[in-house]
C-alpha cells in the first residue's frame, strides 16, 4: 500500500458515553516528517493520540501503522513495534533517578527486563548510552537525582530522553513544550528537530512559534473533526482556523 505514510487513520471515531470526542478522523502522517496537530482545548487532540497508541479503543474506524492494521493491537505491543508516545502531563518514574528512568527504556529494548534472578549490575553496561542521551537533553548534572526532585521543564526533557532511548521509528509528543520557559523551549525545539532526522514525529502543541518552526504539515482539529490541513502558510491564513481560535478564546 502507500508505504509513504507511516500512520494512517480511517474514519477514526471515539465516543465517551454518547459524547463524540473524536469523529471521522482521516489522518495521514508521511514518513520522516514532523506532523503537528493543533486545535482549541478539548478539540480531541489527546484523544486521537490515545487512540493511535491504543490507550483507548476506538468506537469506529481503523488505524494503520506502516501498512499494518493495528486497530486491535495492545499498547505495549505497539510500543515494541516502534510507535512510542509521550504524555500531555509529564510522565516520569518519580522515585527513580534520571539515569534509572532512561534505563527503563533501554533495558526493555535490550531484552533484559524478565531477569528477576540477576542483580542490577547487569544493567550497568547500558549506562553509557543512557548518559549520552541525558547529556543531549541537558540533564547531565542531574543524572543521579531522583526524577521527583526535577523542576517541571527538566522532567519534560527527561521524558524526551527516555522516549529517545527506545530509538522509536515514530514519536507522538503531546504538548512537549507545555509549561516550559522560553530557554527550555528553544533547547527542546532544537532537540526535536535534530532527533526528527530519519524519524516521523506526530506532535500536539499550542505554541504557534514552535509549530511554525518545526512542522511540515499541520492538521487543525475542532470539536473532534479535522478542520483544515496543510503547511503553516496555508493553515495560518485560513479564515476558519482564525475563527476557531478566536471563537473559543483559545490561544
Amino acid at each position, binding site marked *: 500500500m502507500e508505504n509513504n505514510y507511516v500512520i494512517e487513520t480511517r474514519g477514526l471515531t471515539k465516543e465517551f458515553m454518547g459524547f463524540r470526542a473524536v469523529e471521522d478522523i482521516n489522518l495521514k502522517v508521511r514518513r520522516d516528517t514532523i506532523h503537528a496537530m493543533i486545535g482549541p482545548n478539548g478539540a480531541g487532540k489527546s484523544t486521537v493520540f490515545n487512540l493511535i*497508541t491504543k490507550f483507548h479503543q476506538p468506537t469506529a474506524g481503523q488505524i494503520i501503522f506502516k501498512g499494518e492494521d493495528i486497530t486491535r493491537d495492545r499498547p*505495549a*505491543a505497539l510500543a515494541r513495534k516502534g510507535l512510542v508516545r*509521550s504524555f500531555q502531563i509529564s*510522565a516520569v518514574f518519580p522515585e527513580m533517578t534520571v539515569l534509572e528512568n532512561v534505563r527503563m527504556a533501554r533495558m*526493555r*529494548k535490550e531484552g533484559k527486563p524478565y531477569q*528477576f534472578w540477576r542483580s542490577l549490575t547487569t544493567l550497568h553496561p547500558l549506562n553509557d548510552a543512557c548518559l549520552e542521551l541525558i547529556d543531549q537533553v541537558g540533564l547531565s548534572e542531574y543524572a543521579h537525582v531522583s526524577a521527583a526532585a526535577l523542576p517541571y521543564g527538566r522532567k519534560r526533557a527527561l521524558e524526551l530522553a527516555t522516549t529517545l532511548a*527506545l530509538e522509536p521509528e515514530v514519536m507522538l509528543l503531546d504538548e512537549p513544550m507545555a509549561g516550559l520557559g522560553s530557554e527550555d523551549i528553544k533547547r527542546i525545539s532544537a532537540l526535536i528537530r535534530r532527533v526528527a532526522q530519519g524519524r516521523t514525529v506526530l506532535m500536539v502543541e499550542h505554541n504557534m512559534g514552535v509549530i511554525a518552526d518545526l512542522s511540515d504539515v499541520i492538521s487543525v482539529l475542532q470539536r473532534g473533526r479535522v478542520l483544515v490541513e496543510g503547511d503553516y502558510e496555508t493553515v495560518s491564513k485560513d479564515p476558519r482556523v482564525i475563527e476557531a481560535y478566536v471563537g473559543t478564546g483559545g490561544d
Partner: protein
Amino acid sequence: MMRIALFVALVILAIIAPFFVYPVFLMKVFVFALFASAFNLLLGYAGLLSFGHAAFFGTGSYITAHALKVWGFPFEMGLLAGVVASTALGVLFGLIAVRRLGIYFAMITLALAQMMYFVYLQAPFTGGEDGIQSVPRGTLLGLVDLRSDLNLYYVVLAISLAGIFCIYRIVKSPFGQVLRSIGQNPDRSVSLGYSISTYKLAVYIMSAAFSGLAGALLVVVFQLASLDEVNWHMSGEVVLMTLVGGVGTLLGPIVGAAVIVTLQNYLAEVGQWVLVIQGSIFVIIVLAFRKGIVGELSDPESWLRTTLRRVGMRSPGPGPSARPGEAVDLGQARQPVRSGD
C-alpha cells in the same frame, strides 16, 4: 551501607535470641515477617493492594498439614507441597485479578479469598472448625529432629531468611526495576513497551508462593492448620504489618510483623480489647509515621520535622508521643498465642 549493617546485626541477634526469648514466639515473628515481605513485594513495588493474601497463606498451611499428617510426607516435601499448591492458586487468581485496577483489584482478591475460605470450611480434609491438629514436624533431611523447638527454630529462621533474601534479590533485579516502574507510573511503563499485566501476574505468583511458604512454616511451628489462616482477618493483618513497618522497604515488613505479633501476645490477656488497642496503635502510626516505622526512621530528621510541625499545627499541648526507637521487651512475651481471635 547502613541498612545492610543493620540487617546483619539483626541476623546475629536472631541467632542468639532463642536463649533469651521463647523460640515459638520468635518463629511466629519470622513466619509473619516472611508473609509480610511477600505481601510487600506486591504492594510496595508493583503497587498492587491485595486484600486476599490469606488464601495463599492458608493454602500453604492446609496442604502442608495434610501432606505431613495424612500422606506422611517428610518435612521438606511437606513444605514443598504447600508452596506448590499456593503457587498454583496464585496462577489461577492472578489470571483473574491482575487486570483489575486499584480498588477493584483489592475487591476481587478479597472475593476470591473468601471463596477459598468457604472451600476450606466445607472440604472434608480440613476438619472444618477443628482444623488439622497434631501435625507431625518430622526431621530435617532425616537428620535433625524438629520436635525440639530449638532445632526447629534455626530451621525456620534459615528458611524465612532465605525467603526474604530471595524477595530482596527480586526487588533489586531488572525485573524488580520494572515492578517499581509499574508501581510509580503504569501508563509510562506501557508506553515504553512493557506488557504490565504479564509482570503483575509474575509478581503476584511469586508473592503467592512466598506467602504459601510462610503458611507452611506456621503449620510446622504450631502443628496446627486452622481457619484462622484463611480468614479475611489474616489478609487484613498482613496489610497492617506492612503498613506499620513501612511499605516498599526491605526491613519494614519485618519490623511490622515483629510489632504486631508482639502486640498480640502482650495483649492476649485483655481479650476482645486487642482489636481496639491494635486499631488505636494503627491510628497513631498512621498519624506519626506515614511511611511506616522503617520508612520514617530511614530519614529521622525529616520525620522529626514533619511530626513536630504536625503536632504544633494541631494543638500546642503535648502531642501523641510515639517513641520510635524504643525496643520492645520480647522477654515478657512468654505465651505464644495464635493470631486471629
